[in-house]
């Protein structure tokens, strides 16, 4: 059985419609109208132990809502949700011992006390035996370079420093699953990289299952084998990243740097490809060929070009993951 099973999960928020003005306020006292927002709309997926899954989508897609339900702090409107044989919101007390949670926007540490004190408190709250606690802490401390931060109150930490501390806080009790809602929001490149490497390590070495939301697609590409894309509460794509590439018709291009000035019209005449291919002259020595991944493979094109002209250098441009995901978000298949 999968570690996390989600079946036809729904969350509907009811937003109270406020009428304007004094008259509206009076009407509101007696009669209330609601707007319904279906933040999560009938989604299903399952995640196995040890997976590292990226959960992405544009603003307001329903990512945080899903994470809140998965962590047991928000009750679904309908649907089935089982993690590690527990129903998160029903067996919250038991469940919280098995999961770690980081919400990038907030901290679970105590604002006014030094980080190490917060950790000690968590040790008592989760009832972690001292030797376990110490060995885990010293390991994470080294991995994330926490030593200089431990005696500083949380309110005095920078965002990136705080995030590293929060990450360690979520792992002290040795959870099976780690939920991360935008853990790298607002971090610089180095900060992001150190968290990325850390997550990779704990996923590989400790076998912790990780579900992560982010707007940084580079991160997803580097970290996650599997990607779930959601918008308007519905899952648009669930699978691996390479699969995502082949799933869409994408424009690729090859740029040839030639040795000699070339006759563009002549070359265009000679190079005849099937499918949707266009040639473009960038300057005296550079030729660009645009094609779509459905019709041709690059090798074929290169082979043909080399036959006609002398080539100095070749650059193949892949569509970026941003481009693909942007396409998914905007709902265009082609």
């Amino acid at each position: 059985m999968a570690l996390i099973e989600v079946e036809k999960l729904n969350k509907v928020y009811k937003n109270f419609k406020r009428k304007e003005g004094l008259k509206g306020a009076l009407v509101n006292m007696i009669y209330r109208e609601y707007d319904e927002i279906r933040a999560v709309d009938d989604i299903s997926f399952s995640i196995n132990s040890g997976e590292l899954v990226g959960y992405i989508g544009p603003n307001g897609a329903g990512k945080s809502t899903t994470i809140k339900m998965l962590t047991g702090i928000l009750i679904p409107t309908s649907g089935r949700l089982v993690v590690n044989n527990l129903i998160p919101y029903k067996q919250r007390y038991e469940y919280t011992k098995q999961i770690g949670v980081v919400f990038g926007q907030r901290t679970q540490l105590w604002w006014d006390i030094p980080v190490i004190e917060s950790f000690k408190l968590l040790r008592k709250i989760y009832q972690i035996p001292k030797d376990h606690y110490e060995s885990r802490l010293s390991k994470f401390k080294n991995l994330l370079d926490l030593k200089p931060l431990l005696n500083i109150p949380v309110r005095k930490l920078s965002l990136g420093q705080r995030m590293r501390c929060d990450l360690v806080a979520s792992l002290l009790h040795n959870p099976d699953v780690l939920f991360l809602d935008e853990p790298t929001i607002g971090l610089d490149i180095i900060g992001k990289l150190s968290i990325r490497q850390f997550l990779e390590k704990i996923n590989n070495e400790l076998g912790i299952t990780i579900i992560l939301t982010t707007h940084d697609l580079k991160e997803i590409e580097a970290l996650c084998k599997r990607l779930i894309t959601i918008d308007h509460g519905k899952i648009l794509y669930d699978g691996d990243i390479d699969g995502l590439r082949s799933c869409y018709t994408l424009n690729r291009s090859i740029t040839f740097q030639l040795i000699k000035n070339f006759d563009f019209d002549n070359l265009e005449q000679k190079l005849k490809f099937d499918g949707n291919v266009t040639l473009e002259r960038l300057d005296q020595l550079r030729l660009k060929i645009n094609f779509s991944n459905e019709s041709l493979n690059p090798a074929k094109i290169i082979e043909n070009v080399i036959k006609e002209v002398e080539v100095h250098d070749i650059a193949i441009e892949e569509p970026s993951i941003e481009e693909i995901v942007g396409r998914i978000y905007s709902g265009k298949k082609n």
Partner: protein
Amino acid sequence: MSTRRFPDSVIDGFIKYNEYMRISFHKMLAYRVSYLIGVITYIIHVSVYYFLYKALYHQSHTINGYDLQQMVTYVAIGWISKSFYLNYIDRELTEEVKSGHVAMDLIKPIDFQLMCFARGLGQSLFRIVLFTPPIIIVTTCMFPISGPASPVHMFFFILSTFLSVLIYSGINYTIGLLSIFFLSISGILYSKNMIIELLSGLLIPLDWFPLWFQKFSAFLPFQAIAFLPLKIYLGRLDGSGLVYAISLQFLWVIITMLIGRLVWKICQRQILIQGG
């Protein structure tokens, strides 16, 4: 699963909430200015009532069975014990719900109600150590206040005041939970404070009120917060009356806690974690 779980034990459970108490204590230490203002406010309150009652007692020696000295003692001890049982768990809860920070409590293996109680107790502990003593010293120097009726009464007064803390916390917690239904409940909190001041007998002893009102308030938990402990202090309850008062308080501790748990059950369904 490869991971090992650690079973809960009662002692560890206690330690867990003890920690929340400690944190609250430390938090209070951080607000030194509001601490000073608090001490002064309490003393002003007692002074105002002192002069009010002094004027009132100008014509008669006793009113409704209290002489001036007893009345002054009633007011002063009332405020001194209030300085102990008061807590702000309702306000804290409201803020946590509003900001969505309540999520950070819900992802931890803790009982939400016990955690809030522990916070309240931490605040009370802070007060008994640092806040209540200066108030005791100043008020006893300024006004003619009698000691407790007897050592036995003193003992039961302390026990009774401790139960007040629990009842007050129980009410505060339940009212605070309402913020889950209504995002802004400052109005409710304000009226709650007024109602508790009046119906607990802090402002005026409840036996000064008409009979129907006394009967009415006897059915409510509020009188168990101030009126009952103060009657014990003044020696107005003895023997079976004393036992009855303490048992009634115990009963209210249990009832308010159970109501709190019930309301939480209902709220959980409603709770929307804001933000993200």
